[in-house]
């Protein structure tokens, strides 16, 4: 697994390494080979007790759910959840998609209004796939107010047993926020992309993106409370000011970024 950190290379090997990269990138154009990107986010810092949210509507129902601020969420061992990692593509550029992933899943992505929070808190959606916004809070009315930049935004009531179904045609550059105006503390983020190369970190902070065409690609690292994760050490690389890192995906192998430490002070200053 070779990652570029030109600082440590002498002039001579540098040339060799870059030539290798150029070759690898070239090879990926044939798209015969696919690789995996994975890693695990850990919060570096003490989040303390999560902040309780001020429940100002439907207090009797929503108030009993011990709702807390989820903008930074950790699991066991300070595992950082809900970080988005996805392939950056320049406008008008596309990526080869592995045949297994050519079609978006026919299963809808569900965003449920449940216990006066959105479940899940983060989600991934492909263009052409259905987003189903549900309301499983019996007798509680929710509305879903979705801010989108490339697709038409919407703000609609969601009724029990009658989900809103949406399909989008365009990639959004960043995760889009959904809120409920009746219960304004409710928030979720959904990333809409026209390719499958995206992931969010789970309960244990880990993420995995599979079947990526081998070669060097740029990936975006994004977290709700700070947006693009700048200057983050990811494996042997570092993200740029725009939260992007160039990573080389090996053919028939995986690039494991290992533990990625995200400083609490970078998320919440």
């Amino acid at each position, binding site marked *: 697994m070779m990652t570029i950190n*030109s*600082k*440590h*290379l002498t002039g001579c090997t*540098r*040339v060799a390494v*870059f*030539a290798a990269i*150029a070759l690898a990138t070239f090879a990926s154009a044939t798209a015969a080979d696919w690789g995996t990107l994975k890693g695990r986010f850990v919060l570096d810092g003490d989040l303390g007790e999560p902040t309780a949210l001020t429940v*100002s*509507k*439907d*207090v*009797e*129902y929503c108030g009993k759910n011990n709702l807390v601020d989820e903008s930074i969420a950790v699991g066991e061992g300070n595992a950082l959840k809900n970080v988005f990692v996805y392939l950056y593509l*320049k*406008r*008008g550029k596309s990526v080869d998609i592995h045949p297994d992933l050519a079609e978006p899943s026919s299963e809808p992505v569900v965003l449920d209004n449940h216990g006066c929070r959105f479940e899940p808190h983060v989600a991934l959606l492909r263009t052409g796939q259905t987003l189903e916004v549900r309301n499983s809070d019996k*007798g*509680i*009315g929710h*509305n*879903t*107010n979705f*801010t989108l*930049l490339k697709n*038409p*935004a*919407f*703000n*609609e*009531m*969601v*009724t*029990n047993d*009658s989900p*809103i*179904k*949406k399909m989008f*045609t365009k990639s959004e*550059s*960043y995760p889009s926020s959904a809120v409920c*105006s*009746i*219960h*304004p503390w409710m928030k979720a983020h959904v990333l809409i992309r026209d390719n499958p190369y995206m992931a969010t970190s789970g309960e244990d902070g880990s993420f995995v993106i599979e079947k990526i065409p081998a070669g060097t690609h740029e990936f975006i690292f994004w977290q709700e*409370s*700070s*947006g693009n994760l*700048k*200057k983050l050490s990811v494996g042997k690389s570092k993200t740029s*000011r*725009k939260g992007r890192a160039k990573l080389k995906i090996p053919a028939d192998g995986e690039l494991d970024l290992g533990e990625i430490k995200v400083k609490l*002070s970078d998320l*919440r*200053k």
Partner: protein
Amino acid sequence: MNGSVAMNHESLRKNLTWWMAAAALLVGCGKVEPPPFRLNMTQMVSNETPTSPEYQQEIADVLGAMFGTPDEPYAVPEAGLDLSRLRMAAGAAWSDEKGTNHGLYRKHCVHCHGITGDGRGPTARFLNPYPRDYRQGVYKFKSTYNADRPTDDDLLRVLVNGVPGTAMPSFSLLPHSELEALVEYVKYLSIRGQLEVSLAAYVYDDLGEEAEVDENGDEKVDSEGNEITKRIPLDPVNDPEQREVVMELLAEIIEGWESSAEKVVIPSEDHIPADNRNAEEIAASVAQGRELFFGTRANCVKCHGPTALGDGQQDDQDSWNKAHKKFLQDMVNAGDQEGVHPGIVASRAEVVASIYTVRNAIPRNLRQGIYRGGRRRLDIFWRIYTGIAGTPMPATGPASPGAQGTLKEEEIWNIVDYVLSLPYETPSRPLKALPVNLEAVN
């Protein structure tokens, strides 16, 4: 719909000469000192699209070439904007010897909506609600689906009626031709403002620093082994690829405006209540509407309150105020701003200080009988069916033609009847007769 965008792109691509013409035009009017269009600085220094001063200048130049100045407006032919109308609305206010009025926008609108249409005229800060910032292309009182642009008729209606209960006056005394010119100018400022945001996003997402490569395609490094980078300027006049992108961005925006007439919500004839209903029929419909108002499907009660005084959920903001709130929070969180271009950091404090107090969106008091978007039954129907774009008020009808909505049209008409009955109902009544899901009403 997509087809027509594609067609637009085609025709735009073919017609590139105007770029040169527009650039020349700009050079030509360099001598006067007209009030300039202001950049959208909250966008330029935001966390989402931090835009360096060099790029800010380039964005201003591109907008200048494509839209001209407040004194000399220009519009790409493909924008479908009527240049003679724009000229009538733009510039300093004066009348020619034939009695034709010029400079209508500056005469009638600018002290509230500002030269740039950013809703920041000299009196704006003191008004509640604030004057509309046109630059997002989002309008509240319109006949189209929530996400869609307003039609010319919608904007015209707002100008004729004003927005009752706000500072927005009625201009019903102006001749029709002047109103048309003003509508055109509002659209012009919207399209210009929307493109500005798209350009900032494009510059941030796709331009910026790029590694320099040598003749072999290898990335160049300096003696320390660091990548050598160069800034890719925004220069659509000389870069055909960028020009194509800019034209696409514009086409996407214009498509929204040109298709708005097809996005009008037309109530189905079958459900429009007859004019000759008797008192009992109306009362039955009001009762239905009332049940829906308090029920969880429509859930009007949660925001407008059990007495419909607008005292339900008051903690949310409209999209304009919410964007400012988020911006202010981001700036507080920005900490040492390490890695942010110093030119951006330098202007952030000033931009923060310029932002008006963030105001919450207060649901309407429905007992006053003042309807900002018009008092006809159809107006209220549209508000409930499509929601009020840019505000927390959600849609209850389908979000686009053929989609599924929460309420049926006849139910929406029932609620219209109930809403229109509210100013005449004594406020104590709904409290006593409280409704279906009492436990859900806090």
